[in-house]
Each structure stands twice: as C-alpha cells, then as structure tokens.
C-alpha cells in the first residue's frame, strides 16, 4: 500500500460508513433499521421533534393570518402573545423578577419563586415562554440542519462524481480544493463567510453546507473510483454506455445508502455547528428563537437561573442524539460485521 496520497487513504478510512457491498440496497438497509430498537428510538425522537417543528411552523403561519386562533393558545397557555416570538411585547411582572424556574424544580438561589403551569419552563428575559421558544427553535434547528446537509450533499456529490469520473488533474484540483476547505476550521470558515456575505441563517446554512462539502465529495469519489473497477461497469462501458450515465444510473444509486448514513449523522453535526455559530452571535437574527442564540442569551442569566442555559442545551442534545441514533442504526445495518 502506498501512502503517498493521504487523501486516498483517508477516503477509505473516513469515519463515515464502511463501503457496503453494492447489492446492499437502500431497501435492505431500511428493513434492517426497522429491527434496531435504538434506531427506532432515534426515529421516534426525530419524528417528535419534526412534529413540534411542524406545529410551530403552522402556528406561526396561523398567527400571521388568524391572530386569535393558534394551537398554543388552544393549549391553554396564558398570555399567548408572550409566546409568539416573532411578535412580542416585553411584559415584566410586578416584582420586576421575570426569571422563573420550572414548576417542579426549585432554584437554589431563589427558592421562593415558584414557576407556573402556564410557563412550565419559565419565561425569559423578555417575558417570553421558554418552552414555546424551544418549540420554535426546533423548527429552525431541524430545517437548518437538513438544508445545510442537503447543500453539502448535492454539491459534494457533484464534486465527488466529477472528480472520480474525470480523474487526472480535475480530480487533483477538486480534491486539493476540498482538502483546502478541510484545512480551515469550518467554524472559522463559516464565520468569515457570514461576515462577508450576511449575518443571518440563510448564509449560515450556505456556509455550513459549503464547508462540509468535502465530507460528501470524498465519499462519492471513493465510490466512483471503486465502482468504476467493477465488472458490471466494465461490461456496461464495453457495451457503449456513457460514463456519465454509468455514474448517474449505477454509481450514485449504489452509493445512496452510505450517503444517507453520512447525511443523517451530518444533520446532527450541523445542528451543533449552527448552535455554536449562534452562540458566537453568527446565526439567527434576534427575535427569531434559535437554540444556540437562546444559549448565548442565557449566559447572562446563567448564574441566577441556570435553567435557561440547561433547556436549550438539552433540546440540542436530544435532537442530535436522535439523528445520531438513526445514523448509527443505518450504519450498523449497512455493516453487519459490527453488530449482527
């Protein structure tokens, strides 16, 4: 084995999924996942989060059109206005103390301050209901995580396929390029990108997407390289099928399962990255509730009321755990050696 090309080696050893046999299809993978309780738990978590995100989305839309009918209002949570994060009046209660610990827990610094059932997780420094902000944050986290992954996946597949397909200097150039992206810590890359083009969620998603292209590019490229050598591809080529079609019809479909695994795990990673970005002030613009930004805001209140720091952290944790469980389940299904 020749090491002169580190990229080649890391391709194969990438922490991503093992290359499965070509016949291990998506359907098979999914059927395996169905048997895996942890993966199912992951699916359940994400399904729940998605539901929450969807309700928050519908709720937001409804609010815009039918101000007095919303899910959360119907849930009986008082002062709905406090909850709607896009449209809020700060309300400070009589004591000026708007920070409240949750109902069932006492805060050691302010043991006398009960929470309310109306605001189970308390209200924040603007008097907004933390629970509902968390719900709205779900929508952003999941959307952003998935969109950023989608961008990276599509561009990465394109770059990887072109690199593997044309080979030669194009391959070299693209792979050096992707190595370059890898050489700049992506948090820095994305921050520079956002500073240059715009400090909002859209550019955060695009930035993270671009910064993580190499992950997918390498995966696809190594697939292209290995599949190119397979007999049936040679046969297809001999029969005059164009390389382009071979890649589109054989290579990419055959690589879909490992890409799905990578993508699932990447969604989790992206949620973490975006939370980190928001924490540094590079994320959703203020009134929009994102978990990272809630965490960032909460730092000021961390000592008087650590719960504000704890809840968004837990929300991130649970969601990312969900994606990781699914990803692990998919990976295990693809690589029966490890867990079957």
């Amino acid at each position, binding site marked *: 084995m020749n090491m002169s090309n580190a990229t080649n080696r890391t391709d194969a050893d990438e922490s991503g999924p093992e290359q499965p046999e070509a016949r291990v299809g998506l359907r098979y993978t999914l059927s395996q996942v169905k048997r895996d309780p942890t993966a199912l738990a992951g699916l359940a978590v994400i399904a729940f989060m998605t539901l929450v995100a969807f309700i928050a989305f519908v709720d937001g839309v409804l609010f815009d059109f039918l101000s007095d009918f919303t899910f959360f209002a119907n849930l009986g949570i008082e002062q709905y206005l406090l909850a709607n994060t896009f*449209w*809020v*009046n*700060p309300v*400070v209660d009589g004591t*000026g103390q*708007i*920070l409240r610990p949750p109902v069932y827990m006492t805060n050691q*610094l*302010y043991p006398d301050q009960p929470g309310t059932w109306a605001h189970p997780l308390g209200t924040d*420094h*603007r*008097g907004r209901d933390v629970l509902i902000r968390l719900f709205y944050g779900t929508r952003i986290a999941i959307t952003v995580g998935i969109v950023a992954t989608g961008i990276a996946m599509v561009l990465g597949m394109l770059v990887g396929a072109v690199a593997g397909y044309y080979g030669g200097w194009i391959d070299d150039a693209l792979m050096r390029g992707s190595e370059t992206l890898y050489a700049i810590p992506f948090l820095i890359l994305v921050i520079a990108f956002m*500073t240059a083009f715009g*400090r909002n969620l859209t550019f955060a998603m695009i930035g993270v997407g671009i910064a993580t292209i190499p992950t997918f590019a390498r995966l696809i490229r190594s697939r292209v390289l290995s599949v190119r050598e397979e007999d049936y591809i040679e046969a297809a080529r001999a029969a005059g099928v164009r390389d382009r079609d071979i890649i589109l019809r054989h290579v990419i479909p055959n690589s879909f399962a490992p890409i799905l695994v990578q993508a699932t795990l990447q969604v989790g990673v992206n949620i973490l990255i975006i939370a980190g970005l928001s924490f540094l*002030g590079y994320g959703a*613009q*203020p*009134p929009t509730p994102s978990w990272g930004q809630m965490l960032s*805001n909460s*730092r*000021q*209140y*961390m*000592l*008087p009321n650590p719960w504000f720091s704890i809840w968004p952290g837990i929300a991130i944790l649970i969601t990312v755990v969900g994606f990781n469980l699914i990803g692990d389940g998919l990976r295990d299904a693809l690589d029966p050696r490890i867990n079957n």
Partner: protein
Amino acid sequence: MPDENKTFHSQLNRRRVLQGIGGAGIAGLAGCAGGSGDETEGTGTSSGGDSSGGDSTESESTEGGQSSGGKLRIALVKSPLEFDPLVLNDVPSSQVVDRVVEGLYTYDENTGIVPLLAEGSPTVENDGKRFTVTIKEGATFSNGDPVTAEDVKYSYEAPVAENTENASELNMIDTVEAVDERTVQFNLKYPYAPFKTTLTWYVVPKSVREEDKEAFNTGNSLVGSGPFTFEEWQEGNFARLAANPDYWGDPKPNLDEIEFVPVEEATTRVTTLKNGENDIIEEIPPKQYPTVRSIQDASIEEVPGIGYFYAAFNCNEGPTTDPKVREAIDYAFDMDQAVSSYVEPTGVRQYSPYPLSIAESWGFPLDEWKQIPHGKDVDQTKALLEEAGVPDDYTFKVIVPPDDKREQIGITISNGIKEAGWDATVQRLDWGAFLDKYVSGDESEYNIYTLGWSGTPDPDAFTYYLFGRDENTLGVTNGTFYGNNSEAGKQVSEKFIEARRTPEREERKALYEEATTTLLEDRVHLPAYNLKNSFGVKDYVEDFRSHPVSSFSITSDYNNVSVGNK
C-alpha cells in the same frame, strides 16, 4: 466655521471602545476618557498604612492576609493594548495608565475639576483663548525627574505633531509655551469653553518618551508621576502595576501591587469574583445584579457614568425624515419600560443627551424634557403613520450594534412598529459594518439606529458630535443628518456650535436648553439610558470607589484602596 476643530473626543466613538461596549455588553466605560487623570491634589492625610516598604515587585501577598499593602486583582472586560498615554485610545489601556500617569488637573469624586500636578486654577485671559497653569512644586516622575513646563508642552503638542489617534482631542490648541520651569501657557485657536476638561490630559516626561517611543508604548519604559509604576504586561493575560515608592503626592498608595486581568464573559467575571480569583470585577450586567448581591462577601460599587444611549432616526432619507413618523414611532413603544426591563439596574433612564450629573450641574430643565416622550399608544402610531402616508408594505430597518441592551431597545421599537401593522426588521451588525452604515444616511441601510456616546463631563461632548453639521461631524459621528430636511435642525446645530465657543456659562446654558428642547420635540433622538460604572467588590477590599468619569479610583485624596484579610 471652517477651522472649527474637534475637541475632546469622547471615547465611545473609538473603535476599541465601541468594541468593548459591544463585545460584552460593557457599560461602565462611559467617560473613561483618555484625558482623565484621576488623582487629585493631595490635601488630606494618608488614610492608612502607606507603602513605605513598598517597592514590592516580588510581592506574593495574595496568599496571606496582610492587612496593609497587598495585591489587588481587578477583572476588566478587555485587555489593555498599549500604554503610551499620548497614543492609547481604548478604555482598558487608560484604566491601567490612569494609575501611572497624571494630568495637570483631574476630577474630584464627582465631575468637578480640581488641580493635580497644577497649583490652583488656571488663569484665563484673552477672551477665553489663553490659559496659564503653574505646576506644583515637588511634583516628580517616578524616575525622580521633576515635572517641568517643557514636559507639559511636549505632552500637549506631541499627539498633534505625531498625528496620533488622540490628535483631535488637542487640536483646538494653537501654541503651548513654557514660560518658565513651572509655568505653562496654552493659546487656543478660538475660545473653547470646555477647555478645562482638556487640561486633564496626561503629562509624560519628554526625555523618556523621546528616547524610545516604542518601549514607552509597550510599557517597558513607561514613566509617569502617578502613585503606581508599570511592571509587566502580557497582552490578553495581565497587566501589573506596583506602588511607586517615591510618589511625590499624598496619599501614598496602600497597595503594593495591582493586577488587571481581562475577563470578557460577564458570567465568568462574576464567577471569578465569587470564588476569589479576582478581588474586583468591572461591569455587572443587569441580570447578574442579584447574583453578585447573593455573594456573601462581596458588594456592588457603582456610580452613573458620563454616557448617553439613544435611538436615532435617519433624517436624511426615507419616511423618518418626517417628524410625524418619528413621533409615531415614539408612540409605538414605551422607552421607560424598555429601559426598566433591559437596562436597570445596570443603568438609569435618561431623558436628554446629557448624563444626569451634567444636567444637574448645569441646571437644565429636566422636568420639562421628561414630559416630551410619549407613552405607548399604538393607535396613535397607526394614525400618524397613515397621516404621513407611509405605505402599508413599508419595512422599517433598525440597525443595532452588537450589544444586548441596545439590541433589545431596537427589538422593542420594531415590535411596536409591527404591532401598528407595519413591518420592521432589526439587524445586529458587527462594529465594522455598523460604523459604516449608520453614518451613510442611506434609507436602504437604516431608518433607525441605536447607539451610545460618552465623553467628558461637558454638554459639548454630547451635542457637537451628535448634532453638529460640519465636515467633522456630519456623516462622521452624526448619523441622523438632522437639518438636511428641516430648518430647525440646521438651527439646532448652529446653536450647539455657537455654545462651544461661548466662554460665558449662562449664555451657553441658554443655547443648550433651546436647541435641546427643539431636537427632543422633533424626536431626532429618543434618549434612552445611561449606564453605571459598576463594580463587584470583595468585602476585604477597602475604600474602592467607582468614578463617573474615570470609571474607578484607587489612590486619591478622597480614597486609598487597601486589601484586608481575605
């Protein structure tokens, strides 16, 4: 007037200061002007053990419980960057250098100006264009050299000659003459009313600085006449001062050593106060007050600073050029409530561009000004905006700097506008982008912005830069362009400029009152709040004082900090 020049530049307009304020929501920087020494002429007796044994460079006193001397650790928000007082231009640097270098005059406990290196008050002649100051006998730099008129002349001329970032603070001076060893004469280009504040500018030994300016700036050869001497500095880690054993003045410092460490994150600062990593922490954000209060062995020392935070309108382009629209937006929210929610107890509501101490000492009609802002009345907002013909689909753009409090004010305004049925966005910008945009006068960039300003305790420091309409201010520090579309605005600006060159205080006062009332009624600015210089202080630290202008005081004629038993 073409040769009108800038005077004391407030610090808030400076990049680094703005950063400091932005980065961590720092409040207490207002008024830590570079030019403020804070030791006053020693009249009282030394209030405690002096540091006669005090050449304490190797002191390791923190572990023990010495009752006199000792080492003080102060957590600042940011690290100092440079130490040449003629060059430095950021708050943390001046907070350190203020202990080492003194000026001819300084502030008393409040905003009054008292002699320090100078003997008595300056003589004013020639229609307020000539100031003569005598240097106190026996005043020496820490290297033993006496403070001479030549040093003073040099200290006032070098920043302009070298075109340092501080040049604008001194370029109303035409010439400085060293009449004799101890007498200095300042000749101004025009009568400059607040010149007394300029006389608080640092005095450095010419020979030492001239020898190696670089070393002077990095602190290696920094010499001043103050109670402490510069020891060592590591950017981002610490800056350490030691007591000046040969301090010429009184009282001699009680402390052996002061160490300044930067801790940007407020929560972390509070934590270090609680667990004793630091003895004093600067800048307590509003929501940390209860926490600091809950720390058994610490308390809060605070005083309102010399600052002014406000929301301002773009009077150059867009709907906000119309006073009706501005009034409508005033109706859209309640500034009192916003300030009480997001600023108190770290700051106080302010109803004019002048911090309370200035307004009070000048006797401005605060009660009248207080009546000007409207309470929240969204119906009025709707009515006024419709009357002004603002299209239904218009989106107001609010830009805010990266600072939580000002951002909250911005959000409150935008929520009010939304409530009235128009759209509004809030954009939190980095300082770079913000500074670029808020003075562009471009409707597509902003309709409203929130910002802060601080300066010397003179009304001029707040009026000239924020409302002036000359080439030094319009579109430079004045982002409202008030007067571009209104005669009243032009007059306001003229009055403010006239006021700064009027030596007569009563005349000045009248000018300020008239112009200020006009601009408040015209709602060019919606004054918001002023911040306090707040410090969390361990109980074993005795006699520590916060100061409105120079943020805090360690050794002066009214206080002398010491560290008791830990």
